[in-house]
């Protein structure tokens, strides 16, 4: 937030020197750490240039039609001008996955400023990239889960999920003993004293597959796997076709069928661009392993909230991590392994 913010309603999108950074999960491509530009980068730069041109052309049309009058008008206040300037820049920004560090910072600043203009409150949004040598994994102890749903509560609050439609990333399935993992007969919306006699509990959420079918099908690459294994969504790039939702075998994805509502005093102000920032209607969202927390070294909200220690989160590449010990010493399994999705979410029993 410096004198740069004047640029918001100038239509110039100056090409900044490409800094080697890319949030993609591609280890062999531009993320290799080397500063060599491969085809990926070049395509990217070109597309940015073209997009700027596209933007200018559209601007020309719209100014002709008077549609951007508010951003150019002398009458409306400075704040309104700034607001529509931000909206304008936001509408034409590129895919986060392909942004340079500077562009990431700019969009974060715009979003922060836009929130301030709307509500008068400050949020703290970051665009922190994946740490080196980190691959996140999750383990769930089905012997320990008691079905209290504290995790669900914590998740909703942490991730600013829509209160009106009661969107929840986590589902806790109440299963009957002796029937195996029979999801058809399980109940994921129980309301009685828990743990119920003769039942056990199993939580599902986005499994952050290593071979995610949802990423494959997205027509605009609005969802991708980050280097640290988190499958993320660029909410501003998603066009809302819901193909990923159809492709997910784990019911991990949620759609904003209407504008999400979060009461102002309940908004979690510590946000990440790819994580819990406020969404709009018509876009997908899902669990991000609380990217705003996990990238800092903190546990996701569900892990922190769990009173029974049924949830373990950690770095799969750290041989001394708890998750690694579980994978090496417990009888772990994953759901629907036959689909070849390679979830990074394991279950185990005591």
């Amino acid at each position, binding site marked *: 937030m410096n004198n740069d913010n004047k640029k918001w309603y100038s239509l110039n999108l100056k090409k900044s020197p490409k800094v080697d950074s890319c949030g993609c*999960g*591609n*280890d*062999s*491509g531009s993320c290799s750490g080397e500063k060599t530009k491969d085809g990926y980068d070049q395509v990217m730069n070109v597309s940015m240039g073209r997009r700027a041109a596209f933007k200018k052309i559209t601007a020309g049309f719209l100014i002709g039609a008077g549609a951007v009058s508010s951003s150019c008008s002398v009458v409306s206040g400075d704040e309104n001008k700034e607001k529509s300037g931000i909206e304008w820049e936001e509408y034409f920004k590129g895919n986060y996955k392909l942004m340079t560090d500077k562009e990431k910072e700019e969009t974060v600043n715009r979003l922060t400023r836009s929130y301030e203009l709307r509500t008068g409150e400050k949020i703290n949004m970051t665009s922190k990239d994946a*740490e*080196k*040598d*980190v*691959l996140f*994994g999750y*383990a769930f*102890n089905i012997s320990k889960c*008691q*079905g*209290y*749903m*504290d995790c*669900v*509560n914590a998740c909703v609050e942490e991730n600013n999920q829509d209160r009106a439609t*009661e969107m*929840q990333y986590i589902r*806790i399935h109440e299963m009957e003993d002796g029937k195996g993992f029979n999801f058809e007969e399980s109940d*994921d*919306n129980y*309301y*009685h*004293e*828990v743990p119920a006699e003769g039942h056990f509990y199993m939580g599902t959420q986005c499994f952050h597959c*290593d*071979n995610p079918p949802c990423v494959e099908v997205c027509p605009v690459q609005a969802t991708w796997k980050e280097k640290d294994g988190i499958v993320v969504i660029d909410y501003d790039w998603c066009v809302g076709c819901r193909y990923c939702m159809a492709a997910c075998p784990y019911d991990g994805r949620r759609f904003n069928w209407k504008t999400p509502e979060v009461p102002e005093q309940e908004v979690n102000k510590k946000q990440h661009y790819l994580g819990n920032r406020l969404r709009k209607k018509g876009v997908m969202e899902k669990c991000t392993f609380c990217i705003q927390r*996990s990238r*800092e*070294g*903190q*546990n996701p909200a569900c*892990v922190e909230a769990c*009173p*029974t*220690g049924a949830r*373990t*989160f*950690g*770095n*799969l*590449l*750290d*041989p*001394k*991590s*708890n*998750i690694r*010990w*579980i*994978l090496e*010493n*417990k009888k772990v399994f994953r759901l629907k392994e036959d689909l070849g999705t*390679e979830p*990074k979410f394991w279950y185990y029993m*005591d």
Partner: protein
Amino acid sequence: MIQKIVVKTLIIVIGLFVISCKHSHENNYHTVTDKIEAKTVSPENLTITSKTFNENIKTVKFAEDGYEFLIPERKSQITSYNCTECHTQPIEKLKQNQVGEKAAHWNIKLAHAGVEIMNCATCHSNGNMDNLHSLTNSEIDFNYSYKLCSQCHQKEFKDWKGGAHGKQLGGWAPPRLSNTCVNCHNPHKPAFEKRWPVRFNTQKVKERQ
């Protein structure tokens, strides 16, 4: 002529398929387990830390059997420690003066194993109340009460050391700080209690009507 056209179209179609075959071989690994194995790094090279999230927790070190991590310090959390501040005399001398007079710690009901197996004195020392004691009467510091629990709960102890039982505090990143037994389980009543789930989703009900 028709044949020529057919052949040409076929070539175009096949060509299109060949070109569009996926060229990104991002996944060089057959499974994620292979990937983990191949990319594992030695712990010293990991830079990220969760120290900031653990700052406010007073800790002591656990180091046994090759495992090393932090556990919350306990003694400062006990409201009226040292015990000897009240218990100046051994228990025998604290006999009730009158019948029906309330005993100290009257609200504690032991619900841990059976009466034949455990009573107060199984863990608390008669003579030195500032410490606990093991089955063989060696002293155990309140900070290291897990030693007491692990006498019976060996399987849980093993899982806890490794990280499969219990709960990590603060962050996932090193240094590891894990709850010790009594942080989650009340030693006098170790089982988790039944209670109502914290929420119920009314929208799901509507959706499935």
